[in-house]
């Protein structure tokens, strides 16, 4: 399975290698225990350890133990199993949309104290997840865009709309993510052809969107699950077009590969990881301090510059230059994934999707 782990949701190695403490100066060692912070393993974790956690320790005196967290759902199960023993595998961690929804349904996360999170005011409502009673349980941590990426040697003029995926001139030239739950192509189709994702409210609506989406199947060469193999083929021009992560595409372009990432006029797909606090996590005060620190304009700018993520707070509060902002985000209204539908119609969407991509 190693090969199918991708950077965001799947990259975490199963073993939570949470022993790596930071090499922060010993003077800063606070009286309390370090807090355990879970981020997606690999690139994310190493960037957080290098750029973000030391700043947090400098600002607050609280030390951080970094934990690499595995697949969203696997991580959720670990949190749940730990909760049975009234413990938590981390004090605070990033979690993606669908497992977060599932976890909230099972009430696995603590309700946060908003009075301790003054920086919440910087953040649009869509980055604040709430229980039905209004209690806050998820706060936006990092975001990233999935955009339309092309190989400029093979396709000199990059298309400006997601509708290009349906264009027969690209038959056999397109690479798309292989799961309904990570490609968010239902949302893309709904926004491009049905005026927004509201049509996904009902099963009948989703079926209509599926009918439209199934028209792209003949154009698709590769339904990929691991980022690496698609990126390779995009760079080589073997598969010259497809949906891909804006930040990594930017890195590839910076290395000299003929890769262009375009925000289609309907918007890029904006996926995010939110901070959640497992039910039995200790160090509640420190965790609030951490989440609050992560929501400052300075930290968000630090993340954009060093980790390549899109800000989760209003960008006009930040000191990013136009070029820096363009490297991670776009002023166009993004397509926000409808995580809820993958919970409500999980089995049906997965079956319909499987049948669709198998032609």
């Amino acid at each position: 399975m190693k090969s199918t782990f991708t950077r965001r949701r799947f990259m975490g190695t199963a073993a939570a290698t949470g022993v790596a403490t930071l090499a922060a100066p010993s003077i800063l060692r606070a009286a309390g225990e370090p807090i355990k912070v879970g981020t997606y393993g690999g690139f994310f974790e190493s960037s957080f350890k290098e750029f973000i956690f030391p700043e947090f320790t400098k600002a607050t005196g609280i030390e951080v133990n970094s934990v690499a967290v595995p697949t969203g759902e696997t991580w959720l199960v670990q949190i749940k199993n730990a909760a049975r023993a009234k413990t938590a595998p981390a004090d605070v961690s990033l979690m993606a949309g669908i497992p977060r929804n599932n976890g909230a349904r099972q009430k696995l996360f603590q309700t946060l104290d908003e009075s301790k999170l003054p920086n919440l005011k910087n953040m649009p409502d869509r980055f604040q997840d709430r229980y039905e009673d209004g209690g806050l349980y998820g706060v936006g941590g990092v975001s990233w865009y999935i955009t339309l990426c092309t190989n400029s040697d093979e396709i000199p003029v990059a298309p400006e709309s997601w509708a290009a995926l349906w264009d027969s001139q690209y038959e056999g030239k397109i690479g798309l993510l292989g799961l309904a739950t990570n490609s968010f192509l239902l949302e893309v189709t709904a926004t491009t052809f049905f005026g927004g994702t509201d049509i996904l409210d009902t099963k009948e609506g989703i079926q209509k969107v599926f009918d439209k989406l199934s028209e792209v199947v003949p154009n698709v060469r590769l339904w990929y699950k691991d980022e690496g193999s698609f990126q390779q083929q995009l760079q080589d021009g073997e598969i010259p077009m497809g949906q891909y992560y804006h930040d990594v595409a930017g890195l590839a372009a910076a290395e000299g590969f003929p890769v262009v990432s375009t925000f289609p006029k309907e918007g890029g797909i904006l996926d995010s990881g939110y901070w959640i606090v497992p039910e039995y996590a200790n160090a509640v005060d420190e965790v609030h301090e951490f989440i609050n620190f992560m929501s400052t304009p300075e930290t968000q700018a630090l993340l954009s510059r060093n980790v390549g993520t899109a800000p989760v707070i209003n960008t006009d509060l930040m000191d990013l230059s136009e070029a820096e902002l363009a490297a991670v985000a776009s002023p166009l209204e993004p397509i926000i994934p409808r995580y809820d539908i993958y919970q409500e119609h999980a089995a049906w969407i997965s079956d319909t999707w499987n049948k669709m991509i198998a032609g």
Partner: protein
Amino acid sequence: MQEGTRLTRSIGLIPSSVMIGIFFMVPFVLILLTSVSVPTADGDYQLGFSLEHFDRFASWFYIERALFSAGLCALIALLSLLIAFPFTYMLTQFGPRSQTVWLIYILAQLSLSEVLIAFSWQILLSRTGGIANILVWVGLAEKSFSMAPSAGAVLAALVYLAVPFSVLLLYPALSRLDRSLTEAARTLGASPLRTFFTVVVPVTRPAIISGGVTIFVLTLGAIIVPQVLGKPEHWTLSVLITDQAIFNFNMPFASALAVVLLVISASVIYGVTKFFGGKS
């Protein structure tokens, strides 16, 4: 005396039986229980009895996937035996030293993981790095093209994976083959080819059958090769199980599919040993 021997023999079996019980039976029972579990209101599942996950399997899409997987793996077993059998037969005729060297070489191939093989074949079959360029170079193709993802790519890589196993499965039987049988056939005027088909193959039939079944079951569990080198229509049941377990996190449905896969394996093993396994 007889009773005593049986008792000591049974006592000797206890440690390994307990091990097998713990490491094989317990997970199997857990899978079985999960496959018939019932969903709870908060989206989790709990112990119970419900056939809804098997009901979900019982659509043409999943049945077709199961049949495709079985057919593909049967074909792979056949092809890898066709390649491995003549090679192993020749190998057993070499001197002991070169036999050892070859066997070590083939054993070493087994250390290549499925992941490594899948990605190597992906490069080999790509437009830029691969076989297609050789075809252009020798003039067989006009323009380089990509050969993956395709059914042929899945087949080639899985056969590649299975051949070393086939050789090792056939080797014991072929190396123990009584030379006087082939010599007799040759003395009585049979050509080498005829000797091979009328003497060697029938005598080693049990090894061929068990080797074929082993390869079938082994490739039925392959995930990476079909996923990386195949289009979605070439994804096997194992790929779908992985999808359900890891990406959709539907453990009950993944377990139900796994039970179906187990049933397929078991029936093939049973059927083949019953109908072809008898002593010739």
